[in-house]
């Protein structure tokens, strides 16, 4: 009896690793953007949705999967860049309060989600990639697609980490995350760095949308939005702006969701993530894995 229970949990962990990889990708993007711009982007889910639908549209033209992934990333990147360039940046220049920028992202989320609904309709549309047979790896069962998702997630997160630590852009991003005014005083072109950050955020979120669509197998206009608060939970649990924290947060949240699904109704899956989020906000708003206490603005 115990053996079969353990088997169930390990299977849940296996599912959890794929979910966690997708959440982690999206969380790294959100966490980077949130820390640099200090705007909680509630349209982040829609960037994923748009990425997934872009991959679907690309599939009609080509069966070469990397091209579909590229289409997803480019679409996400474009919309994130455009949202900042045409809406958030003009409002920021005018000195809009942070809460107003937050509300603008909510409005953009409403526009994009319903734009997708308007164009593609509300019914689920199948998005199927050629399947591969499942393999046993240790106690887990993975398909080739699962491994590709986990692998690309790790590679992209590594790239983001290297960008933040080794490049001039990353240095500027970290400076702006600490204080935009001080960064500007030292001669950093903050607007340009912020634009690039949104572009990178959108590229990764769009790609994450592609992996989400591929792993779910069907798309609806709320496919990304359904994960929005889970991603926020992962970002905040891991500590906003901390790439390793985002990965650890996503892993924790993804596993909590999948393991809770073994025992509780599906509706409670996201609740597991939310409970972790609320506990983190109340007890350690700077994130669970942050050892140095930072001042939370």
């Amino acid at each position: 009896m115990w053996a079969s229970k353990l088997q169930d949990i390990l299977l849940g962990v296996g599912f959890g690793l794929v979910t966690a990889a997708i959440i982690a990708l999206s969380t790294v993007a959100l966490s980077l953007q949130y820390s640099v711009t200090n705007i909680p982007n509630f349209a982040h889910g829609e960037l994923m949705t748009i990425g997934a639908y872009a991959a679907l549209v690309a599939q009609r033209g080509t069966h070469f999967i990397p091209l579909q992934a590229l289409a997803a990333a480019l679409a996400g990147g474009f919309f994130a860049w455009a949202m900042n360039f045409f809406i958030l940046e003009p409002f920021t220049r005018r000195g809009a309060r942070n809460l107003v920028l937050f509300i603008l992202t909510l409005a953009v989320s409403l526009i994009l989600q319903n734009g997708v609904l308007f164009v593609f309709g509300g019914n689920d549309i199948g998005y199927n990639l050629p399947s591969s047979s499942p393999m046993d790896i240790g106690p887990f069962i993975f398909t080739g697609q699962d491994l590709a998702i986990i692998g690309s997630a790790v590679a992209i997160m590594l790239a983001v980490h290297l960008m933040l630590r080794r490049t001039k852009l990353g240095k500027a991003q970290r400076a702006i995350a600490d204080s935009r005014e001080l960064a500007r005083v030292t001669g950093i072109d903050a607007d340009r760095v912020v634009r690039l950050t949104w572009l990178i955020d959108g590229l990764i979120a769009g790609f994450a949308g592609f992996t989400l669509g591929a792993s779910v197998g069907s798309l609806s206009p709320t496919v990304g939005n359904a994960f929005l608060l889970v991603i926020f939970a992962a970002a905040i649990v891991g500590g906003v702006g901390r790439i390793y924290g985002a990965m650890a947060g996503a892993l924790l949240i993804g596993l909590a969701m999948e393991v809770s699904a073994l025992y509780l109704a599906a509706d409670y899956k996201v609740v597991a993530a939310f409970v972790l989020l609320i506990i983190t906000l109340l007890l350690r708003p700077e994130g669970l894995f942050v050892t140095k206490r930072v001042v939370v603005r």
Partner: protein
Amino acid sequence: MIDYIVSTLTIGIIWTIFAYGLNVSWGWTGQLDLAPFMFIAVGAYTYLVLVGGPAPANAGPSVHWILGLHLPFVLGLLGAMVVAGACALLLGGVALRRLRDDYFAITTVVTTLTVYAFIAQFTPLFDGYTGVYAVERPFETALNLPAEAYQALFMVACLVVLGIVYLVMQAIFRSPYGRLLRAVREDETAATAFGRNVYRVKLQAYVVGACTAGLGGAMFGAFLQAFNPYAWNVAETFLIYAAIFVGGSGNIRGVLLGSFFITVFVQELTRLLVPMILPGSPDAAAALRYMIVGLLIVGVLWWRPQGLLPEPQDRDTVLGLARGAGAGADPPR
């Protein structure tokens, strides 16, 4: 046709009560609350289980909800306000104490979804996804009116409730307490420096807003005669926000105007016109409505952030003094 107009106006009136609730927490105190629909739903459920009876006997053993007390109408409204207020006290008491405003907003929306999942899954409470239903409208058998006349009378009842809420809101706005709320919104540090407990003021405003939303929810439940998880979702919160932005945050008449503009004009226009222009796409009306609402929010915030009717500025009531000369008055802008 008259039926349609009466029911549309009734919904407009009820939504205005919702908007007044949100106007206290967002419009006056400046808290980005994404949980108004939780308070509305709690109000509706509470009203239905207080005023209605237990689940009908012929519905089978799986249909079940709590209470079913057959209480009088007014007690149902009061109960809805009390329970919604208590929820706000609990949520606000924890979330307002230590969270900065974007974390507060995230916490409220996450709490709403958690409560949603709980109500949907824990069937003994409000019968899960099936929900509470078959609750008679107030005084329907006692009055024994024809259906149209009763509908019109119910609309008048909603209007009376709205009128009371309006007068209360006006009294709050004009009172020193209303000024305190706006002071907290404009500058928490200054309010603290003048010896105010900002946390307590915010919490009070949050509870008052939730009670108002709960009252609106009770009227909504009375109107629908039933309530279940399909009757509410977080996206509708933005309709209320759009109403407040368009009409004018903090202005009581503005909120009334904005609420009717969004819930009656935009809602019904898209519902009626879009199927005519685009037959055969069932989602187009809802999609266009929310896109318009999103564009309206962005457009209003850019071109007219104060809304159609801006919030009235405080004036010094001491005669003979120049504006801004009174102690603690707003400096001239």
